[in-house]
């Protein structure tokens, strides 16, 4: 009896700790934002939907249990065409994409971090640009470059200037999808791998060298194992992101009847076949889940030292010698082609009054600042004086800032909880559950939130049509990034720093505000910026959720692309990219002046 009492008191004591309460609170929130949608995903595959009423030969009662969708998706001609073949295509494209992401990312990282390459700062700045471009930009540029008459298309630049007609497999299908997605997502790899390379003390390598190890042996036995966690993280992110991407395979796969799971999901969801579409989403989820599991098995033991950072390690740079300039020039040319050319092209196109005419006399600012003229884009005024565009731009900025801040803050708090009780079940649960949204394709995540928040459920009001829903879905979807940065930055803050404040009588909030937050500000800002960039150029996540009253730039731009306003939508894409760059730059500038001295700087 007494033992029970003591236990109860111990429990009560634990519950007095803010981290326990926080952990519980976050678990509840995450269960609602992540687990309930997942449950709803599974449920949808097992009941009849409203669109199914047109199916003949089945007793369709909307909302009633059925295994029809699963039966259709698992065997027969339909399954073969809609599931198995696209699955194979998805696996091929994903593997290729990840290979490119790893190859380009690690090569660039190596050049910038470990060699004395010229103009390293410029290369570093250019290397991250593709990530801030909306995903459709690279694939459209690809077509501009390679399309030609053999695929019954207008002449692209290659054909126009050289007369060479690229074969169909280079214009459409898996090869261009892999290349453009790889070039879009390699900045992930670049950032992660260069981070890992920076943390290697070259003394580790030098000591091996002194012991007579060959270069390749050092690479294999010393360097690779140390950056292995970063490589695996890159691969995992690459898998999760590229499998769920819809834009690229839609533009470069569809014309050649090359379908992937993401395009099939989009088609099925758009044609009121959620039940079947979500089964494919579950498959994507399962594949990413396996990736995550393997990833954790491989790197969990190494995690402890994978996250160190900030210490000035000695790094000896490899001398490129006479090859330095040629390599640097090649690298910069490559980056210009991937990062800058599409942007320049878009800008130029947005300045041409009549499509396809690139002569000087045709240059005009009409699509930027022109007044309404019914001859062009059905009388839409230029984007800078267009209410709809400016409204959407403001919404985008607001959403990115609010979403980014909430996400960054939540990530830090979850990081705090996880770091304070590394081994507790709640911590591990929190970490794992918060990672799940990364594995769910954006389009499916959006669709789930639509069903989940379309009607009032218990205390949660119907949020569809509100700005709050966009914020919510942004936070839930992007949380994996900030939780990761939150956990690692919290782990870097010694517990004693907080305990000293405990002793001096600081309340939990005071500690958070005065000690923990200032010390983890870098991680917070980094996480927020990633969320900011990602959400500003995110399309599939919002496309089902926006209502006319709260559109964002990407959905509006996509709409104008759909109706064929090329120059107008290109102007919007440029505007969007500019907004991302300016916001990111502003945050970086502000964050540096504020925190530099505070952390002792050197």
């Amino acid at each position, binding site marked *: 009896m007494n033992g029970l009492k003591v236990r109860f008191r111990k429990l009560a004591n634990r519950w007095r700790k803010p981290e326990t309460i926080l952990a519980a609170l976050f678990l509840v929130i995450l269960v609602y934002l992540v687990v309930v949608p997942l449950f709803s995903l599974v449920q949808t595959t097992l009941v009849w939907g409203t669109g199914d009423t047109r199916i003949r030969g089945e007793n369709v009662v909307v909302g009633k249990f059925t295994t029809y969708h699963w039966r259709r998706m698992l065997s027969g001609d339909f399954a073969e065409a809609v599931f198995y073949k696209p699955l194979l295509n998805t696996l091929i494209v994903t593997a290729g994409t990840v290979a490119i992401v790893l190859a380009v990312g690690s090569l660039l990282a190596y050049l910038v971090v470990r060699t004395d390459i010229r103009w390293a700062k410029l290369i570093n700045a250019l290397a991250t640009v593709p990530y801030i471009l909306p995903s459709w930009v690279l694939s459209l540029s690809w077509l501009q470059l390679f399309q030609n008459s053999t695929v019954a298309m207008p002449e692209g630049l290659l054909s126009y200037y050289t007369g060479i007609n690229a074969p169909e497999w280079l214009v459409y299908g898996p090869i261009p999808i892999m290349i453009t997605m790889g070039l879009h997502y390699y900045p992930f790899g670049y950032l992660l791998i260069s981070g890992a390379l920076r943390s290697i003390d070259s003394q580790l390598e030098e000591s091996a060298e002194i012991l007579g190890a060959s270069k390749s042996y050092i690479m294999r036995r010393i360097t690779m194992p140390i950056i292995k966690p970063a490589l695996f993280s890159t691969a995992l992110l690459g898998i999760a992101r590229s499998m769920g991407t819809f834009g690229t395979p839609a533009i470069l796969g569809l014309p050649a009847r090359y379908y992937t799971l993401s395009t099939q999901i989009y088609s099925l969801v758009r044609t009121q076949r959620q039940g079947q579409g979500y089964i494919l989403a579950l498959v994507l989820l399962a594949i990413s889940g396996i990736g995550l599991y393997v990833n954790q098995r491989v790197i969990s033991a190494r995690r402890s030292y994978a996250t160190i950072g900030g210490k000035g390690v000695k790094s000896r740079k490899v001398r490129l010698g006479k090859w330095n300039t040629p390599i640097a020039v090649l690298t910069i040319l490559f980056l210009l082609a991937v990062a800058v050319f599409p942007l320049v092209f878009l800008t130029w196109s947005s300045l041409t009054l009549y499509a396809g005419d690139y002569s000087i006399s045709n240059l005009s600012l009409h699509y930027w600042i022109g007044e309404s003229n019914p001859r062009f884009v059905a009388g839409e005024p230029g984007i800078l004086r267009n209410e709809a565009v400016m409204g959407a731009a403001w919404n985008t900025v607001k959403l990115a800032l609010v979403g980014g801040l909430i996400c960054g803050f939540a990530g830090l708090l979850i990081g705090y909880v996880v770091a304070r009780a590394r081994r507790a079940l709640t911590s591990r649960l929190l970490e794992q559950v918060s990672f799940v949204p990364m594995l769910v394709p954006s389009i499916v995540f959006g669709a789930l939130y639509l069903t989940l928040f379309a009607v009032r459920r218990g205390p949660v009001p119907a949020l569809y049509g509100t700005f709050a829903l966009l914020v919510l879905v942004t936070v839930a979807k992007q949380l994996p990034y900030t939780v990761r940065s939150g956990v690692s930055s919290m782990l870097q803050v010694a517990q004693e720093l907080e305990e000293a404040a405990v002793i001096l009588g*600081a309340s939990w909030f005071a500690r958070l505000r005065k000690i923990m937050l200032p010390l983890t500000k870098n991680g917070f800002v980094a996480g927020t910026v990633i969320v900011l960039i990602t959400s500003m150029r995110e399309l599939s996540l919002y496309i089902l959720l926006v209502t006319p009253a709260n559109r964002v730039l990407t959905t509006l731009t996509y709409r104008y692309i759909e109706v064929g306003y090329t120059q107008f939508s290109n102007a919007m894409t440029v505007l969007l990219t500019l907004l991302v760059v300016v916001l990111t730059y502003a945050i970086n500038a502000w964050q540096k002046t504020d925190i530099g001295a505070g*952390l002792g700087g*050197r």
Partner: protein
Amino acid sequence: MVTVRLVGISKGWSGVKAVDNLSLDIGKGDFVTLLGPSGCGKTTTLRMIAGLEDPDDGEIYIHGKLVFSASKGINVPPAQRGLGMIFQSYALWPHMTVFDNVAFGLVQQKLSKDQINQRVTRVLADVELEGLAHRYPSELSGGQQQRVAVARMIVVSPELLLMDEPLSNLDTRLRMQMRASLKRMHQETNTTVVYVTHDQEEALTMSTGIAVMNKGKLEQYASPEEVYERPASKFVAEFTGNPQTNFIDAEVVDGRLKIGDRFIGHIDGDALPNAVTLSFRPEAMSIRQESTPNTLPATVYATLLVGASVLVYVHIGNIEAVIRAERGSKFRGNQEIWLEPDWTQVNVYSPTTGRRLDYAVRG
């Protein structure tokens, strides 16, 4: 008057007891050191006093007030226990200036700006850091950082100050200086100090009381002299010797001690055991050139000069021992010598339990 009273406190993690049924009284104004090897539970004990860990069992009183009781469900938060703590890493907040670090506790007490200014300035003067108030911790030397950590805690005038190996990150010279200044601070403020260290020399030089801990249990709690001269167990004797304490097993035959095949000295008392372990510090034996009834034969292995004295490493039979000799003493390797114990400095232990036995020994 007792400042800290621990009654039967225990703490464990996943079945391993870090602190096992520990009871301890620390008087007002004492400077008590918790001494032991790493993993002995000393830091855990300190953190439980501070309230940073919750014991699984037992009670803690501070200034006569019950601040923790597992059975009564009492657990007073750290800030209300009236104590300060200095961490091994100093735990200075890198994003705050020295002034802000020191002022933090006063700000939490919502003192007026003038009061804060006044008290921080005074305490910084006390620790000789005036002029550095607006530096950041990363701009200070290790010793200065350590003094900031002290200042941060004494500025709120706690009646109890907890220190967790505060000097272990300093180099030898600085450590000695800081010992002196901590000791002086203790005397001036008359604060009760609980001090954790694994350095026996630090414990011996600074404390008014030493609690030697081993595997979560208290081995001995006594004054430094007592701990040094009459270690309660072989463990304590071993842990407090510098450079080490010599142990020699002896048979007891009719009130005589027999080491090897040589009878030496007498042991007095009732119900004498058959065998004992004798301990003597390096300075408790003198080196003789000739054999007498009160000597043991030994061979010299090596000689080390350590400033004021010479350490002679010898073999007594197959036992290795260290003897402290006067500076200037010269010995060759393998030289035969004889050792004469100073019986007043010899302690007797049970070879089985390792506890000290209360028998008197003499020549």
